[in-house]
């Protein structure tokens, strides 16, 4: 199945990647080449085969339900969380206005 320019533009929008006309023109044939190649997977009879969920058998662990069970991933580190934010203000992440 091949995708058209409009579909690729829609995917770019879903992926939140701005794309100009030249980028779209370049990407459409690349995209179709890759899709045409992965479509050979359709040849494989997978009836009755479960999709892989865990590549190495493991069991799901739960951590102890206590505050700051691991100090590295616990709370109380607001300034560290914000340290790399491009526009932190007043202890919050800053973003452009989202409501009028």
């Amino acid at each position: 199945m091949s995708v058209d320019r409009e579909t690729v533009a829609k995917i770019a929008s879903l992926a939140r990647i701005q794309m100009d006309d030249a980028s779209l023109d370049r990407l459409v044939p690349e995209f179709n080449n890759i899709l045409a190649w992965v479509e050979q997977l359709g040849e494989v009879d997978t009836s009755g085969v479960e999709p892989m969920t865990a590549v190495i058998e493991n069991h799901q662990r739960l951590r102890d339900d206590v505050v700051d069970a691991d100090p590295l991933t616990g709370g109380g580190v607001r300034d560290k969380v914000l340290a790399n934010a491009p526009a932190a203000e007043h202890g919050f992440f800053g973003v452009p206005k989202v409501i009028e």
Partner: protein
Amino acid sequence: MTDLTELGVKAIRDGVASGDFTAREVAESFNANVAAAQDALNAFIVATPEKALEAADAVDAARARGDTLGKLAGVPIGMKDLFATKGVQTTAASHILEGFVPEYESTVSANLWRAGAGMLGKLNLDQFAMGSSNETSYFGNVISPWRKEGSNAGLAPGGSSGGSSAAVAARLCPAATGTDTGGSIRQPAAFTGISGIKPTYGRCSRWGIVAFASSLDQAGPMVRDVTDCAIMLEAMAGFDPKDSTSLDLPVPEWEAGLDPDLRGKKVGIPREYRMDGTDAAILKSWDDGIAWLRDAGAEIVDVSLPHTKYALPAYYIVAPAEASSNLARYDGVRYGLRELPQGANLQEMYAATRAAGFGDEVKRRIMIGTYVLSAGFYDAYYNQAQRVRTLISNDFKAAFEQCDVILAPTTPTASFPLGDKVDDPLAMYLNDVFAVPASLAGLPAMSVPAGLNADGLPLGLQIIGRAFDEQGVLNAGLAIESRAGFDARPKRWW
């Protein structure tokens, strides 16, 4: 005094422990090599000579006090710039993370520092570990120290761990960390004549490693020989409650368990890996490997991995799908780059930031991933790929009923000139055709140098083992290493 940069991990560790030289002397020697090669090879994004010296001084002081030294005491290493390092810029070779300085340390790097290693710097890589030639880095290509005989053309060091492979091959560091999602340790190791192992999925914690495809990503060592692989993997591995897929198992003593005697072992040769288009020199080195393992006492058996040809297309659905999800976090809000055009709203800011911050290959994979996960296509693409992944894993389980390890080439060709495949994504993806199946099945796999081709470029052999059997892989690797007699190295031109 001998040139300390000629030494590998074991020799440095033992020499520091016995007082033949100090950890500081070692760090100074490697710092000098890093600085001297940077302009020519571009292996590092950031050099941290002061970190290497600081760790070395701590080791020398510990030794002077008579303290017990760690497994890597005095060994300076290169850290792939995909591992978060507290206080040192961590970029994943991307513009979007340029200037990102983590407030925390990845588990694997923390394990290495605890073992007495020091950091020479952060190594260049393909952007977000997506690539097989180290040509997608925002910080420029890494140039392989190897050259074809009679040519000065720049060659690919492999990818994505191309800074790691180039730095170890050029003696800028005795050891480097790598990560392997679909061959990113093994392929660059093969291209540069060094050894590297990707352990069983879950052996090394993924916590603090910039995520690409979480069900595939595994860290591992890239070093000069098999023994150094065992030593460094012991220091990197271990259970970590912060990674939900971390294996809650003790770390085996792989170094102590090294044994190249393969009597009683069976080595499987997968017939489907004999593919059209594989280089004659690669096939010849595969035959050499078979002869060496037979000489080591192993019985050689034919095995079949029938779904091999579907591994690469399945990988190029699963990995981009996971990447599109993992890379959603780069939004211009929490860390890294922000592009805010005049008058842009929040959605426009996201799109402008991601357009400016991601390279072409990263965008391509995010887009493919977004498409295969989108409504209406999820079952046909993503679920079908995950079903094929189950079949590939089952193929290996069946093969390992007949053999203990599998021997195959690491790559279909030796290294190629930079620029050769950069405009053809599918040709680039084919580099990993032999490496990806073990990744999809989560199995331990390593590459060891096997010889040179007619151009004087290194070729690697790959050993794939059962889940949890890194020891079997390392032992077969050692049997090859001791027979291949590989002592070639790039002639210094940098």
